[in-house]
């Protein structure tokens, strides 16, 4: 364990704000404040993949790494739609997933919002409409905000969440 603590002291705090340092710092302050005001300190996100390639999920997982550490802003990914305020929807809404997406949405307690993540749910990704695709997501759900990108980088997701917080 000594080895680990030595390394930890040597590494220090990694949580950083790559590029645009000041801008992000301002964003973080704003996010923190609006989460505090609007969601009593914690915004609970339920991630639902409706048929993506896993890149959007990988970027959401990256939000938890030491560089971004989303949870310090009071934003959490929760394990059940019943714990959530917001459904973060990635993927193209496949024929096979559509009923399950609607079911998960129904489970989220009011008030609730939907944020679409990545180019797939708005049919902006290179995938074309086939019989197995039921997108865009707007056809089935009321979408409050969209975070564009294929996939959006962790920084863009953070920015997108802030825009959402400003909107509501």
């Amino acid at each position, binding site marked *: 364990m000594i*080895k*680990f603590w030595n*390394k930890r002291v040597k590494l220090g705090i*990694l949580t950083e704000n*790559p590029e645009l340092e000041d801008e992000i710092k301002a964003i973080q302050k704003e996010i923190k404040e609006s989460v505090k005001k609007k969601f009593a300190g914690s915004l609970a996100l339920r*991630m*639902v*993949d*409706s*048929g*993506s*390639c*896993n*890149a*959007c*999920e*990988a*970027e*959401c*997982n*990256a939000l*938890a*790494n*030491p*560089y971004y550490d989303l949870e310090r802003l009071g934003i959490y*990914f929760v*394990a*059940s*739609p019943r714990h959530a305020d917001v459904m973060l929807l990635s*993927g*193209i809404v*496949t*024929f*096979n*997933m559509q*009923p*399950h997406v609607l079911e*998960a949405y129904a489970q989220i307690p009011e008030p609730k919002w939907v944020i679409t993540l990545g180019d797939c749910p708005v049919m902006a*990704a*290179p*995938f*074309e*409409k*086939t*019989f*197995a*695709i039921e997108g865009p997501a707007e056809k089935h759900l009321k979408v409050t905000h969209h975070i564009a990108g*294929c*996939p959006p*980088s962790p920084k863009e997701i953070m920015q997108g969440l802030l825009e959402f917080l400003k909107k509501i």
Partner: protein
Amino acid sequence: MRFIARYAKDKGRVFEIVTLYDTKTEIEQVHKQKPIIKTLSHEHPVALWFERKMQDDFGIIVEDAFDKRPLVHQEQFPKNVHPMCKDFNEKELQYSKFQPYNYEVINGDGVFHVSVGPIHAGIIEPGHFHFSQAGEKMLHLEVRHFYTYRAIEKMLEGKTLQEAKTIIERISGNESIAYQICWRDIMLQASQQELPKSLQKRHAFLLELERVIHHLTDLGFIPNDAGFGAALAIGSKLSEDARRKMKEITGHRFGFSAVDFENKFIDTASLHTWLDSLKEDLEYFEDWITDIPSLWDRLDTTGILALKKAVKYDTVGVVAKASGLAIDRRINNFYLQNGFEAVTQLSGDVAARFKVRIAEVKNSLVMMHNFLEEDETILKLDSVQDGEYMSFAESSMGELFMTIDIKDGVIERFFSRDPSFVNWQAVHLMMRNDIIADFPLINKSCDLSYAGNDL
């Protein structure tokens, strides 16, 4: 003889069934009026999903199969619709009446069932797992997928190879470079050209970088699923560093559209330094994590896939290597000259898969040094010739197979077999001696793709 894939093609009056082994290819034709074939699942159990997929896609009847349930088409999918047939051109389908799916279960006194998914608790792709439980012990697991089925095969028909590229590279985000390399090889075969050495090295570098990113993520997530969060902090830090390098080199964090025929400038000096520092970090990580007995208590002897089963189920990639089966598409002169070493473990458990990942990353770092070259070559491609082409690549999950038939300059049939497609079928074998709480750990140690599997 290792079974690789079995797929069908619509050839007008007949269906052509191609069965691919590592040493030979068998082609069989059946008349559309009487589309009946025999199953291979007695000798090669993983042929089952290929055959069930064929049954859904084309309406081909597998006469002596013991499992004739639909695979791709789920509860509300219209019956008797076979979308891969050439005469199917619908863009919209109506949901039909819900017809329950008969899960493969074990019943008995006190035995109960647990359904998990398709939407999971973590941030992962959708898929369904159906457990038969005796208390905490798992008696049986049925893996059921195809929730992310986007009908990529149909989507690509009628497109040129160039047009298809942006879709092919997005089939599975974690394996994008591998898919692009398969596409590249088919492009080269179809235009009858040789790839300059320097471009081959650039692409090989990117493929290894993708492998490093994926393995580092797993090296964090596997201990995390055993309740050891500190490893995730380190693993995810290292994988983020590597992903930023991918962005620096290709302009995209996942390397989408990175594999092209132009060798752009890369700063080799700084990359050599970065590779060295990553090697140092990894050695520290290995040294540190090997010393945590409570973690290895969870990893050792959990989720064992015996060598005999790994062979019988024709597994590939990390899963096969951890059981002692050295199957790797990189066993060739090009890679061997650049320092490739096959990695295997014998115990076949979660710990073995963890160790294989560490060893593979180390080997990748050695090779990446050798792949770095400053050279600005551009390859001009000739026009594409019609024909039937096949290619392979070793993605971070294992052997990826892709085949494209080109007719009149456009894609007539596209098929790819993700390494996950065979490995998913072997996952239930790993559960025999474990409790349900071990399942997330075992699943993560294989870290298979859902999107690549479903297409």
